[in-house]
């Protein structure tokens, strides 16, 4: 969410110059504006959240909302005006998978370490006022209890650790653990799995991988009109529907909506920190050409290694968010258009944005997880072809060799993005 607001500023990094209470209030008005989302697919508006009334059920009444407007001024971010534009065009927050992928890079733990250094001492050298404002915003919005009665109030005495709360949501929705341990927890402890029971989508990873494999089969055969063609659009639709049902089961009645908004908004602040050469990146001499490289340099300053495949995780986060919302909206179910995942609008026509993004997800997913998806289906025996590309996506610099460490979590589930033995750990 905050990335949309940041893009309204002449320089997105100026969002960190806005007072944290204004940013917190903006999240409140953005939640309240969600029913304006246009109808997509055949579902009623906001049905993908598990309830068509979830927004109204939890929003602040409009008259009360007006008592303290966000009042954000794009040309004067340090100021406030009651009558200022709310900057809430029809928007939907990012899917929870966005928060999972961003947090999997290790950016949250690296920022935590940087903030700890900033607020406790002077070991990072001289920092500019803009960097200290960034630190204030991040500490207030990510590392302390949210304002009372706010939509982001998903932390309490019942669930007092945000790191564990987020892992609980990831576990329930995707059956995934983060690839790094929670600082301070003994190895093997996984309190986020307590009280979950059967309410965890542990089959999500397998179903999703199968969907990508089937989509690739369709993509590979999209102009094949004479040879054997293993494409089965209805099966693609069934897989999409299974994922839709699986995720929908976790959202019944609007469950996890507030958590999803809060976690994806929080992670978007981490994402924005390394999306460009922001003041903190400059002050810590971490300027680079991609978020993953900036993150690696920031990690070096505080002795934390990010995920080895951080580059793919950053690049996956946006298209995965859109694709999973599309699946939850039923756009690719058997009675809709499953073949739109791999076929263009016209036979032989240019690929749609959807085709391009899905193909990109396949490349990045197989590179990030180490599981090959692009397996050639045409040809058998001696005629079988070798994969046309290597498993891993190219990177500008060789990755550091992973240092073996004990498994960070207990239970049968593994992080989706192994190997990440050093991710989030001090070296």
């Amino acid at each position, binding site marked *: 969410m905050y*990335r949309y607001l940041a893009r309204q500023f002449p320089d997105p990094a100026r969002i960190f110059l806005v007072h944290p209470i204004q940013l917190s209030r903006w999240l409140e008005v953005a939640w309240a504006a969600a029913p304006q989302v*246009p109808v997509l697919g055949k579902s009623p508006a906001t049905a993908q959240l598990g309830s068509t009334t979830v927004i109204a059920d939890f929003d602040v009444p409009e008259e009360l909302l007006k008592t303290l407007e966000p009042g954000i001024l794009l040309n004067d971010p340090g100021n406030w005006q009651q009558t200022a534009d709310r900057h809430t065009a*029809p928007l939907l927050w990012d899917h929870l998978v966005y928060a999972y992928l961003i947090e999997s890079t290790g950016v949250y733990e690296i920022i935590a370490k940087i903030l700890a250094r900033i607020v406790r001492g002077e070991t990072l050298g001289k920092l500019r006022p803009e960097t200290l404002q960034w630190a204030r915003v991040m500490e207030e919005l990510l590392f302390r209890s949210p304002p009372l009665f706010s939509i982001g109030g998903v932390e309490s005495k019942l669930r007092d650790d945000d790191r564990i709360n987020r892992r609980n949501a990831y576990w329930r929705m995707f059956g995934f653990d983060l690839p790094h341990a929670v600082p301070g927890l003994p190895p093997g402890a996984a309190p986020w799995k307590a009280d979950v029971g059967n309410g965890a989508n542990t089959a999500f990873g397998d179903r999703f991988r199968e969907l990508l494999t089937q989509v690739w089969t369709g993509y590979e055969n999209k102009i094949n009109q*004479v040879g054997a063609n293993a494409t089965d659009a209805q099966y693609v639709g069934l897989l999409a529907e299974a994922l839709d049902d699986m995720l929908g089961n976790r959202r019944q009645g609007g469950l996890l909506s507030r958590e999803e908004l809060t976690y994806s908004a929080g992670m978007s602040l981490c994402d924005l920190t390394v999306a460009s050469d922001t003041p903190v990146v400059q002050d810590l001499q971490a300027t680079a050409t991609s978020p993953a490289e900036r993150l690696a340099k920031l990690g070096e300053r505080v002795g934390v290694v990010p995920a080895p495949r951080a580059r793919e995780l950053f690049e996956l986060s946006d298209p995965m968010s859109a694709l999973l919302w599309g699946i939850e909206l039923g*756009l690719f179910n058997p009675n809709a258009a499953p073949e739109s995942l791999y076929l*263009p609008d016209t036979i032989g026509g240019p690929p749609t*944005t959807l085709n391009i993004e899905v193909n990109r997800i396949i490349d990045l997913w197989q590179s990030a997880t180490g599981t090959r998806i692009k397996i050639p289906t045409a040809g058998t025996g001696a005629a079988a072809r070798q994969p046309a590309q290597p498993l891993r996506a190219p990177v500008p610099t060789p990755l550091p060799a992973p240092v073996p460490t004990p498994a960070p979590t207990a239970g049968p589930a593994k992080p989706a993005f192994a190997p990440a033995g050093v991710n989030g750990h001090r070296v």
Partner: protein
Amino acid sequence: MPTKQPAPTGQKPEPNGIDPALVDRLVRALESIAAQGQQAPTAVTSGIDNHDHHGPRPDPVRSRAARDYDVLRGLLGRADAPLPLRMHRKNEGYDTFVVIDDPIPPAARTAIVESPGDGKSGQLTEHIAIPDNGKGELELDEISADMPISRVELVDCHDALVAFGPSLPVFKS
């Protein structure tokens, strides 16, 4: 003096081993390709749409899903996606309008307004030329004030989506 060449000898030609089913599929595929090449220009669907459509007609179901995905990217605030715009409804006498509050992208030429309609009308879609008076007011013809609006799309002269609006409830004065 020409010499008589011996008659060619050797094995008899093999009987045709091509699978008839494969031949049938090949012929149908070639016919399909030829038909695509000869297909007449697609009929212009809107009176205000004055550009030419050539080539095969897009699959409506796939097009709709791809368009939905584009809107979804815009809803997520992606930098390279169609722009989300704020809009509201207005009534003047018997006339009902959708008013675009944000600046309209210069490339936008046509607005497509969709409504689920009511029990009698069924789903309604109106194509409205973007007025060039800078007001951004779209006068509705069939969609009445007591019908909700599910979606508003702004497309350019090539029917590419450049912006979209919110869903708007039934108008209450």
